[in-house]
Structures are given as C-alpha cells and as structure tokens.
C-alpha cells in the first residue's frame, strides 16, 4: 500500500510534532481498515486508482493535517468585532494622523517638501501594514488562548449619544479637505515653499506678490482657519446640523467676497528682471497674471457651486427627515 504510506508521510509533514505519532497511527489504522473492507468486497487487492480514490476522499494531506490543529480560525466570531474596531482605531486614529503630522513637519523643515510628503505617504503605507500585522497577531494569540472580552456585556442603552440629525458627511471628504486645507495654510504662512520659477524666455526673472496680497493676507488666513475648523467638526461629527451648514454657507459667501476683491485688484504678481528685456518681462507678466485671474475666476465658480450644492443637500435632508417622521 505504497500510496497510503506516501499519504501518511505527507500528512505527518504538516502536523505539529507533538501530534504526529498519535494522529498518523490512528489515521493509518482507519485507512487500512477501509482499504481491507473494500478488498474483501472486491475479492482482490485494490489497484492504484482505487487506492487513489480512497485517499482523495480524505482530502489533500495539507488540508487533512490542518483539521487537527487546535485553532481552526485565526480570529473567531466572538473576537472579530473587537479586532475590527481595534484595527479601525489604530489605522485611522493613530497611524494616519501621526504620519500626516509627521509628514507636515518634515515638509515644513525640508528643502524638498514634495519629497518629504512622498516619504510620509510611504511611511503611512508601511505603518498601516505593520499595524495591521501586529493587531492581527495580538488577536490571533488572544483567540488561541480563548480570551473573551466581557466589558461590553455591561453596556447601558442610556449611555448612547443622541441620534444624529442632519445630513451625513463622508469622512473621506473631511479628511481630503483637511489635508489640502492644512497644506495650503502652511504655504500661506510661509512654512512650506514651492519651487520658484527663476527664468522666463531664457532670461532671469523674479516674481513678487503684488500689494493686494498684503491687504488680503489676514482675510484669507481667516477663511482658511474657518474652513479647516469646519472639516474638523465634520470629521468628529460626520453629520451636519443646520447650524454647521449655515456656518459653512457663510464661509462660502465670505470666500466669494474675497475672490471678488482679489479680482477687482486686477494685478496679482509683479515680474522683476532686466529692463533691457522688457518684452520678455511683459509676456511673463501677462501670462502669470492671466493665469492667476482665471484661477480665481474658477475658484469663485467652485465656491458658488459648492454653496448651491450645500443648499440642495440641506433641503434634500430636510425633505427626507419629513418623509421619515411622517412614516413613524
């Protein structure tokens, strides 16, 4: 019965050492008993195909051996909800914020902020993989030791927060807004720098902010801080009450006013260079200022569309609430 011996040897290889002798001896007896019964029925020895069919019924040696392992699930149904919540907490409230803050600080003090952000994103990815592995390992050990958590058995429904009212805000939207807002704020405060254009049409030039930016520095700063505050509120409390929506609308109106004031200035960047190349300077001046102008026109349109969308979401949420309460 060469095939049976080979099967038993293969199962043995995948068994823990302390189980090998015992399991293989028992399995051997069971296999041979079954083979003998079939031989008695057939009146002859089993051929290779029949032996093969007998062994295939028992399953692949690797699978057969795995069924003898004391732990059949890495993380069982009792622990899985705790595992899931722990993973969410670790990834989105520890790894991601630490990486983003670290990335921001690196970008501030680095000569190559883009590279620093790239490294921060790489670190976030690696951190997420390690954190997932460590949390999974911890819970796998807890499952093996049959640890069970009972703290949540003592919960009291009266501890639950009030039911959310208002429209839901996707967390991704808040996180994206926060990341962009913080990045722009750091740039506005001069804490991070973008590469400067130092030549135009083959001539050395310098671009200097026009006077309008000095006038608008604090109004824009206030707008950035207010927007970031709204994103933080949305992140912590991902459903917008009417109050928060109205504040957001007010910020939107304020932003549109800022855009209008900037556009009214008409001139945004001074181009400084060799006066002997006035034509180059003029072309650069027209191009840069037109670019800034169109950017702000688009920005103004985006602010207006965002406000209209917010109003639509508010009315939509109000209508849904009315329908739900009429059905109750």
């Amino acid at each position, binding site marked *: 019965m060469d095939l049976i011996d080979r099967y038993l040897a293969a199962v043995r290889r995948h068994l823990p050492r302390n189980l090998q002798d015992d*399991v293989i001896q028992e399995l051997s*007896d069971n296999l041979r008993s079954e083979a003998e019964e079939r031989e008695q029925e057939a009146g002859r020895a089993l051929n290779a195909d029949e032996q093969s069919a007998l062994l295939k019924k028992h*399953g692949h040696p690797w699978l*057969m051996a795995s069924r003898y392992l004391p732990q059949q699930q890495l993380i069982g149904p009792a622990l899985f909800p705790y595992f899931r919540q722990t993973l969410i907490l670790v990834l989105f409230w520890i790894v991601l914020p630490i990486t983003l803050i670290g990335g921001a600080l690196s970008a501030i003090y680095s000569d190559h902020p883009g590279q620093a952000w790239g490294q921060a994103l790489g670190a976030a990815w690696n951190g997420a993989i390690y954190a997932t592995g460590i949390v999974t390992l911890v819970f796998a050990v807890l499952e093996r030791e049959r640890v069970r958590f009972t703290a949540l058995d003592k919960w009291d429904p009266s501890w639950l927060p009030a039911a959310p009212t208002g429209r839901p805000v996707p967390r991704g939207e808040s996180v994206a807004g926060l990341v962009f807002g913080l990045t722009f704020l750091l740039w506005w405060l001069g804490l991070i720098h973008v590469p400067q254009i130092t030549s135009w049409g083959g001539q050395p030039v310098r671009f200097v902010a026009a006077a309008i930016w000095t006038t608008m520095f604090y109004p824009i700063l206030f707008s950035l801080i207010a927007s970031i505050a709204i994103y933080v509120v949305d992140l912590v409390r991902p459903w917008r009450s009417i109050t928060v929506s109205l504040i957001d609308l007010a910020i939107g109106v304020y932003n549109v006013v800022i855009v209008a004031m900037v556009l009214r200035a008409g001139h945004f960047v001074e181009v400084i260079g060799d006066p002997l190349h006035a034509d180059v300077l003029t072309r650069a001046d027209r191009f840069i200022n037109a670019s800034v102008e169109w950017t702000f026109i688009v920005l103004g349109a985006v602010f207006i569309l965002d406000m209209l969308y917010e109003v639509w979401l508010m009315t939509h949420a109000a209508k849904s609430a009315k329908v739900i309460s009429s059905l109750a």
Partner: protein
Amino acid sequence: MDPNLFDSLRLELRRGSLTLAVLAQLRAEHYGYTLRKALADLGLEIDEGTLYPLLRRLETQELLTSEWREEGGRKKRFYKLSPDGRQIFKQLLAEWNGINQSLDRIV
C-alpha cells in the same frame, strides 16, 4: 444565486448535529472507522476529514476518553463517552429536541 450557497448553508446545518450524532454513537465504544460506518449505516454520512479531527477535539474537551488496543494485528484507538461527555450529551439532546419541536411548529 451562488451555486455554493446551498453547500455552505448545509454545512452550517450539519455542523452541530454531527457532534450530537458522534456523542450519541459513542455511548458504545468504537474506533474511528467503525464509528463512521455505524453512522453511515444509520443514514448520516460523515467524511473522514471531518470525523477524525472531531474525535480529537471532543477528547481535548474531555467529552471522550480513548485507549489504544491491539486488534486484528493493528493498534486501534477506541473512543467512548466520558462522564462529562454523558452529561453534555443529555443536555445537548434536550436542546436538540427543543429545537426540533420549535422547528416543527415553524415549518
């Protein structure tokens, strides 16, 4: 519909009842092969890959006792219910009967 859905649900349905069937049959002493045959003769097919690890698990849970004995020129491991196993079996049987009665009323 997922073609594997029925198999998956059937497996869940059988999982608990297999343990009860094995405990019931081990009120008398058996070794692995004769236990499987006895269950099959009574209409409950259980594949080898499931039965033998189940016996190990029940023994680890101290619901079964086992001993090696030589029979027919080979060493065989004979299983039977332990005192704890007998108690658990009675409790599980009562639970099973309760579930059956409820199901009869529901279906």
